[in-house]
Each structure stands twice: as C-alpha cells, then as structure tokens.
C-alpha cells in the first residue's frame, strides 16, 4: 500500500456550548503525525471524530480512497466498520479477558485480508510475549499500554490513532514504553496520529506536526518546519525550539560524545549508545545565543555556523526570536532586542550560533 493511499483528510466542524472545533486537515499517509496543543485545544475531539467515536455535525473524513464520513451526503461509517486502531489514554484492556484474549478480540473480528501483523510479530515487537496468559489486573501501567497497542495493531488497522498514550504513566513507565513507540515508528507501515500535550514526546516521536489552539489548526507540516516557525502564538512560542536528527559520530575524552548533523557537529555528555546510532535532540531557542565572530574565550562548547533567515518579536517585551539556517537545518535563537540592535542582526547575516545546552530526548 503506497503512502498516498492512506493520506488522511479530516474536515471537522463541531459546535458545542463551551467548545468549538473547526479544522480542515490533510495528513500524510506515513509516519507519526502529532496533534499537539494545550488542553482544551480540541486534539482529542479531533482524534475521536476521525475514529468515528464522535460524529461531527459537519464533517468529512477519508483515509485514502475510503470515505468514512461525508455529511454532505449523510454518510457515516460507524467505528467498528472502519479499519483503524485506537489506543486510549488509559489502557482499558477488557478486565474479563486474559491478555491473549484481549489481543485476539479485534484480530478475530477483522477480515483476514486486512491483517498486516501476526500475534507473534506484535507480541515480540512490544515485548509482551511473557504476559499473554496473565490477567490485565496483574500488569503494570506500561505493560497494559503495550498490550493495548498490540491489541489495536492486531485489529487490522490502516491507521493507528493514539490519544495521549503516555499521559497516565509516571516518568519511569514513560521511559520504559518510549523505546517501543520508537520501534513502532521505524517498523510500522501504517500512519499514526498521536495526540499529546508533552513537547518532549512530540519532539522525540513525530515526523509531522499539527498545532491546535482553541479548536483551530494553526500550523501543520513537517516537524521542523512547524517547530522553526517564529510567528506562533504565545502558548507555543514560549517553548520554542527545534529538533535535530543527529548520529553519534564518536566518543571522546572528558566524557563527551560527538554528534554529527547536516549543519555541523555538537558535543554532549557521554552517551551509552555505540557510534552510528541515530539520536534526536531538541534545542530550545532560549539556549541558543548569537556571536558575530567565533568565540574561543567561552565555556560554551557548541558553536555552529549559521545564517539569519528572519526575526520576530515574542510576547515577552524586549525579546526576539531569530530563525537561522544551519546548512539546511533550521535553528531558533531567543535574544534580547538590545543585542539584536547592537550586533545589527538582520536577514542574510552570517554568524555563529552558540548552543548552551542540548536536550537529549530520553
């Protein structure tokens, strides 16, 4: 199945007394698309409407050539007739069935020709083979959520919808389950829509990003093209930063590891992974400062060459966001207006971006 076959189109309009949703999304048919926004922004409602658990009064939902809802001709396919999998915030395994019977619940009901995964494959992928005969009650939160993901995959979905699957877990459980999600990301051929309000999860998992605010989609696109926008509302701009896809290039003395990316090299505290491992890191705009000439008399190790693309004011008076191009990779820096004036920062200026700290997403 080619990627264009599972492109998602969702035009949804819901008006309630205390809430409005009005979005028109076209999402790619591959990779993980994160729906990100503050609580109340409509991301869960969006997901539920795509799943058919909620019916938008005015809506059009299609996956590739399969139309699931088209209110203009009164068409609404109920959720059980849609080839999708949903993972809810809490695992909601059926308490009266063993883990195995939970996994088989959807598998038995899905037409054989729609199933892309086998039980052994999925249990291996999610590391739940030893848990199959257990009752859901005896499982930890993380184990339950992995079983719920496996159950969704076995129902022959053409798309996987995840509604804040980690939100109910503590940090330890999150760390336990994130590697499995990354594995899914690498090995899954079907698109995933991932609802989250945690920037770190989004930065770590997403390929595409839709920003929702007060029931509207205010930005949509490839992860970094959205993250590097400098014209976003305060709710997003305060936490501005980009994601760099790097590869471990070498381990050095002084407990440092060298990471390579398109725009150069950066050093981080010693990593346990071997050389060649891909590593995603997040660079907050507030941790990037600018210098016109290379600085040697500084404690900051990471300094890359960059060109200014544009500048924009932030909601904090006296502070600016500067968008930089770093050999094709975007980078954001948050600086004061006074510095910008003193250094005459303007579009096209070549300078040095000093990265004070790099958040490694683990």
């Amino acid at each position: 199945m080619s990627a264009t076959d599972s492109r998602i189109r969702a035009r949804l309009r819901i008006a309630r007394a205390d809430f409005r949703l009005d979005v028109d999304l076209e999402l790619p048919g591959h990779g993980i698309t994160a729906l990100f926004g503050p609580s109340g922004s409509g991301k869960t409602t969006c997901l539920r409407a795509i799943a058919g658990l909620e019916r938008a009064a005015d809506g059009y939902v299609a996956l590739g050539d399969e139309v699931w809802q088209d209110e203009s001709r009164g068409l609404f396919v109920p959720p059980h007739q849609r080839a999708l999998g949903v993972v809810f915030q809490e695992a909601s395994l059926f308490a009266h069935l063993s883990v195995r019977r939970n996994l088989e619940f959807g598998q038995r009901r899905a037409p054989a020709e729609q199933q892309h995964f086998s039980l052994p494959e999925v249990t291996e992928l999610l590391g739940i083979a030893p848990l199959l005969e257990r009752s859901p009650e005896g499982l930890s939160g993380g184990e339950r959520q992995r079983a719920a993901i496996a159950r969704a995959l076995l129902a022959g979905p053409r798309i996987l919808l995840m509604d804040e699957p980690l939100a109910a877990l503590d940090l330890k459980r999150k760390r336990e389950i994130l590697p499995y999600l990354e594995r899914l990301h690498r090995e899954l051929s079907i698109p995933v829509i991932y609802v989250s309000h945690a920037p770190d999860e989004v930065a770590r998992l997403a390929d595409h990003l839709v920003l929702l605010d007060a029931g509207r989609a205010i930005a949509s696109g490839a992860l970094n093209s959205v993250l590097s926008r400098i014209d976003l509302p305060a709710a997003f701009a305060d936490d501005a930063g980009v994601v760099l896809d790097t590869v471990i290039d070498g381990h050095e003395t002084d407990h440092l590891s060298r990471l390579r990316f398109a725009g150069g090299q950066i050093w981080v505290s010693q990593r346990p992974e071997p050389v060649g491992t891909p590593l995603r890191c997040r660079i907050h705009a507030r941790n990037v400062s600018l210098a016109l000439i290379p600085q040697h008399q500084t404690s900051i190790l990471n300094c890359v060459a960059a060109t200014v693309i544009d500048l924009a004011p932030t909601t904090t008076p006296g502070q600016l966001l500067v968008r930089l191009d770093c050999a094709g990779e975007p980078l954001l820096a948050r600086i004061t207006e006074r510095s910008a004036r003193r250094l005459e920062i303007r579009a096209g200026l070549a300078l040095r971006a000093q990265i004070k700290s790099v958040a490694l997403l683990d």
Partner: protein
Amino acid sequence: MTAASQDLAAVWLTLKLASVVTVLLLIIGTPIAWWLARTRSRLKGAVGAIVALPLVLPPTVIGFYLLITMGPHGPIGRLTEALGLGVLPFTFSGLVVASVFYSLPFVVQPIQNAFEAIGERPLEVASTLRAGPWDSFWSVAVPLARPGFLSGAILGFAHTVGEFGVVLMIGGNIPEKTRVVSVQIYDHVEALAYTQAHWLAGGMVLFSFAVLLTLYTLNPGRRARP
C-alpha cells in the same frame, strides 16, 4: 392429601414459580436495565420510577390492580380471553405475571448499576476493535456486568419466593396451583398447626440467610441493592 404432602407441593410450586419468574425477569429486565443505564432520554426518570414502584407500594395495591386488569373486564383479561387463554387470576400463569411485575426492580436495579459501572470506555474500545453494538453487548457489557446479573437473579428469585400479599390477592389459595409456601405458612398458623408452620418458616429463614450469604460473599465490596 396429607399435610406433609401439601407442604411439599407448596415448596415445589414456590420453587417452580420463582424459577420461571427469574428466567422471565432476566429476559425482560436486561433490556430495561440497559436502556436505563445508557439513555439520555427525558423518559428515563419516569420509566425508572415505574420499575421501582413495587418497592414502595403495598403488595395488596399491586395485587388489587393486577386482579382488575387481568380479570374478565380488564384490558389484559379481555386480551387473554380473546386469545383463548382464559383469564389469568387464580391460575399459575397469573401468579407468574404478577410476580414478574412485583420482583422487577430487584432484578433491573442491580443489572442497571452494573451496566452503569462499566462506563462508556470498554464499549468504545470494542467498537474500535470491529465489534458492532450487538456483539459488544454480548462480548463486553454482559461479561463485565456479571456480578450485577448474579445479584439480580438471586434477589429476583428470593423475592419471588418470599412474596405473600400479591399472591393472595391474585392467586388465592388453591392447593398445587397457587398455594405457595408463604400462603401455606399462613394457613398453618390460622389452623394453629404451629409445628408445621415452624418447619416451613424455619426453612424460609435458612433459605433467605443462605441467599444473602451467597450474595455478600460474591460481592464483598458492594452492598447488595436495593
């Protein structure tokens, strides 16, 4: 017929009545409980109140109205006569109909509570796993509501065994047809046959205790309703 065989006949009739009524109540009560648990209709309050009426009405009131509606001039009576079934009062079928109405809340309410306790989520999950509404009901809602069904069945059975007023009003006191244990005990006491009354009454105490013990052992956390 000896007194002992009359007692046995009453016990047998009571058990038969309670069994038939329990089965009917599970069949009738489950859709009502499901509807009450899930509906957002404005009628929910009214239907819930009608179902619960037998909890508060004196059995004689229920018996009186059933007698009239099922009698030859009542609407149900006319219907049953037109269908060639005769009239229901003073027959076993009449007792069954009356008991179904009288014990309805004891079955509907525990099942309704159990359905409400399940919540929306498991059914939503089932629908995303390709289970249609009918399939979800049988494969998810009913198994998850099992404790409610057990409580409902036990309470419905026990309550039917214990009813007296309605039976007397609608069924009278016909040996082997409508004379159940509670009526038989009443007869024994009227006749000052206390020994025989003790046997039956003591048996009822033991039976009721066993029923409640089972109920509380099965549902330790929850108090049996109503």
